[in-house]
C-alpha cells in the first residue's frame, strides 16, 4: 500500500551531494513530493528532508539506495515513529472590500500572520503540517489565492532521539 513518507537525510555539505540524491530519485523512478535542504548546526553537514509516496518495498529501496551514496551519513524514515513535521507557506491572497476581514479571520483561525499588505492583497505566512496549509488554501478558496510559495516539509523525530553523526 502506497503512503506518504517523510525521510530525513544527513549528508556531507559538499558540492554535488544534492545532485546525487535528486539524480537517484530520477534514475530509479522514485517520486519526490517535496524536498528541502540546508546546512545544519555543524556546517560541514547538510540536513535534507524529503517527502515521497511509495509502498513498503519502494520505501525500503529508497532508504537503502540513499544510504549507498558515499556522501550520505544517515537516512531515517521519520514516519516510522513519532515525529513533528512543519512546512512554511507564504501566500498572497486577494483582499478587497469585504473580503479583507474574511481573509484576516481565516488567517487567524489557521494561526497565520499577515506579513505584507497592499490595497488589494494580503500576504499571509502560515506554518504547520502540510495538510494544515492545504486546509488554509481550501478555506480561502482558489479564486482568492494569487500566489503561494511553500518551503517543503521539514521533519524531526519527537522525544530525545536525535539524528546526528
Amino acid at each position, binding site marked *: 500500500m502506497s503512503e506518504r513518507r517523510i525521510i530525513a537525510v544527513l549528508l556531507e555539505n559538499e558540492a*554535488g551531494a544534492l545532485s*546525487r540524491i535528486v539524480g537517484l530519485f530520477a534514475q530509479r523512478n522514485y517520486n519526490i513530493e517535496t524536498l528541502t535542504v540546508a546546512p545544519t548546526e555543524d556546517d560541514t553537514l547538510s540536513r535534507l528532508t524529503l517527502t515521497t509516496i511509495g509502498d513498503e*518495498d519502494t520505501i525500503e529501496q529508497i532508504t*537503502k*539506495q540513499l*544510504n549507498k551514496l558515499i*556522501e550520505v*551519513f544517515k537516512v531515517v524514515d521519520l514516519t516510522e515513529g513519532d515525529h513533528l513535521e512543519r512546512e512554511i507557506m507564504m501566500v498572497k491572497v486577494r483582499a478587497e472590500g469585504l473580503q479583507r476581514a474574511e481573509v484576516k479571520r481565516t488567517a487567524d483561525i489557521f494561526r497565520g500572520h499577515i506579513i505584507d499588505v497592499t490595497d488589494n492583497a494580503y500576504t499571509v505566512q502560515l506554518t504547520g503540517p502540510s495538510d494544515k496549509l492545504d486546509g488554509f488554501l481550501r478555506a480561502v478558496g482558489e479564486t482568492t489565492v494569487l500566489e503561494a510559495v511553500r518551503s517543503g516539509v521539514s521533519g524531526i523525530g519527537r522525544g530525545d532521539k536525535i539524528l546526528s553523526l
Partner: protein
Amino acid sequence: MAEMLSGADMLIRALQDEGVEYLFGYPGGASLHIYDAIFKQQKVEHILVRHEQAATHMADGYARATGRPGVVLVTSGPGATNAITGIATAHMDSTPIVVISGQVPNPQIGTDAFQETDMVGISRPVVKHSFLVREASQIPEVVKKAFYIATTGRPGPVVIDVPKDSTDPGVMFEYRYPREVSLRSYNPTVRGHSGQIRRAVKALLDAERPVIYTGGGVVQGNATEELGELVDKLDYPITNTLMGLGGFPGTDRRFLGMLGMHGTFEANMAMHHADMIFAVGARFDDRVTNDPAKFCPNARIVHLDVDPASISKIIRADVPIVGPADAVLREVNEVLDRSLARKPDAIDREALAAWWNRIRQWRCKHGLDHDQRHRGDSPLLPQQVVQAVYRATSGDAYVTSDVGQHQMFAAQYYKFDRPRRWINSGGLGTMGFGLPAAMGVQFAFPDATVVCITGEGSFMMNMQELSTCMQYALPIKIINLNNAALGMVKQWQDMQYGGRLSHSTYRDALPDFVDLAGSFGHTGFRAGSVKELDEVMSEVFSPEYADKLCLVDACIDPEEHVYPMAIKGGAMNDMVLERQTASP
C-alpha cells in the same frame, strides 16, 4: 621536507604510490599536462588505445582478472563521453576501475568551452562515486579516496575529473600520499550479523530441497574457497549466474550449470522446485528470475550480499545477511561445523538423496549436450566451436566475450573451474567489450592464454583495437562466431516476430575477417566445418602462434538458436528447449 610537485606530477606519483601498473588512455588537450608527467617517469606504463570506450573495457578486464583496480585516463569532452559505456559496464558488473578525465580549466567550467562536458554530471548515474578536483592540492587525497571507494564494499567505478589548471606544471605543491583514508560517511560492512548467520545455517540444515545460487559476488569477493568448503560439507546442488561462473568448479558433480534465461534445464528446474535457496553475491536479476511473482514459489530465501540494497530488491529475503561473501561464508562454515558436531544427522540425507535423484532426471533428460544439435559436421555449430576452444585450451584459458548468442554459448559450453577466468559484460550487455577486456587480461597476465569468444557484430564495435594489440604484441586468440547476423536479435525475431529480420543482417557487407586481421599485422584463419575447425584450433593454440594474435573466423550455422530459453513472463521452470518454429 616533502617533495614539491606539480598537480600533474602529483597525480601520476599518486598512481605509482597506489601500485598502478597500467594506465589505459588516450591523450587530448585537457590532459596534456598529465601526459607530460607520464612521459617523465617509467613506473606506470601507459597503454595507448584507439578509442576511449576500449580503454575502460581494458581496465575493466584487467580488474576482473586480477581483482586489482584498473585505471583509465581520458581527455575532456568526447574523451570523457566515449568512456561512459565502459564506466556503465563496470558499474553494472561491480568492477573496480578508476577513470581520470581531463576537464577544461576551472575558470572555464560552465562556459561551453572547447571540449567541455560535465563529466561528473554525465557519469553520475553509472559511477559508485566521482570527484571534481577543484584544487590541485587535493589530488593525492582524492586519488587515495577514489581507489579506496572503488575497491571496498561492493566495488565499482570511480571518476576523477581533473580541470587542466589543477595540473599546471608551473605550480608546485608539497606531495604527501596519505597512508590511509577514512570517509566518515562511508563504512562498508566487513562482517555479517552473527544472529542472521545462525538463522541462515538453520535454514540450510532444515532444507529438504536446497539449492545454492551464487553470483559475481563470490568471484569479486574472493570467496571461492569458502564456497567450495560449504558445498563439500553439505553436498547440496549449486548453480551459478552468468557473472558467477568459475565461482564454483564447472566440472564438479554438484554443479548444475548456469541458471536463468539461457541456463540449464536442471538448474532452472531445481531452483523452481527448491524449498530453500541460499543466494550468495547474486542479485536476482531479471535474466535469472523470469517473472518475480512466479519465482521459486516454495522456497525460503537466504540472501547474502555485501550491498544491502541488493537484498529484497526483487525477491524478498527471509534471511537477509549483509556482508562480504568470504567473511560471512567463513562464519557460516564455522557455525555449520559446530551444528554438525552437536548433531551429526542434522542434514536429512534421505531427503537430499531424493532431491539429487530428481535433479539427475532433469539433467539426463535435457542436458545441454543432447545429440540432436551436435550430429554431423556441416554446417558448423557455435557450440562445437566453443567446445573445441575448451579442449584446445584444456579448460584453463581466460575467456572474454561480448553480449549475445556467442556469449551464451561460451557460458554454456566452456566449463570454468576457477574464478576470474570468465570475463563478460553481464549486467549492461555491452557489445564491443570482449576484445578490449581480453587485452586488459593479457596485460595483467602476459603468459596466459587469453581467448575472446565474440560475434562479428560485437567484434566490429571495437575492432580498431587490433592496432593496439599490434603495438603491444598481445597474443590474444579471437574466436569470431560469425553467423553474419546479430544473432540474439535474430533469434528473438525468429521466435517472436514471425521471422521478420528487421535490421539484424548486413546484406553481404561484412569484411573478410581473415584479411582484416592480416591488414592489422595479425594472422587470420577461417573454419567452416568441424574438420577445418579442428585443424585451425590445433594451429592457433600451437607454440608457433603462442606470441601472435590469431583471429579465427568461424563461419557457423546462422540458424542456430540458444537453448534452453526462458519463456517470457513465466516461472523459472518455463523454458523452450529446442527450436519450435521453422526458420524462414
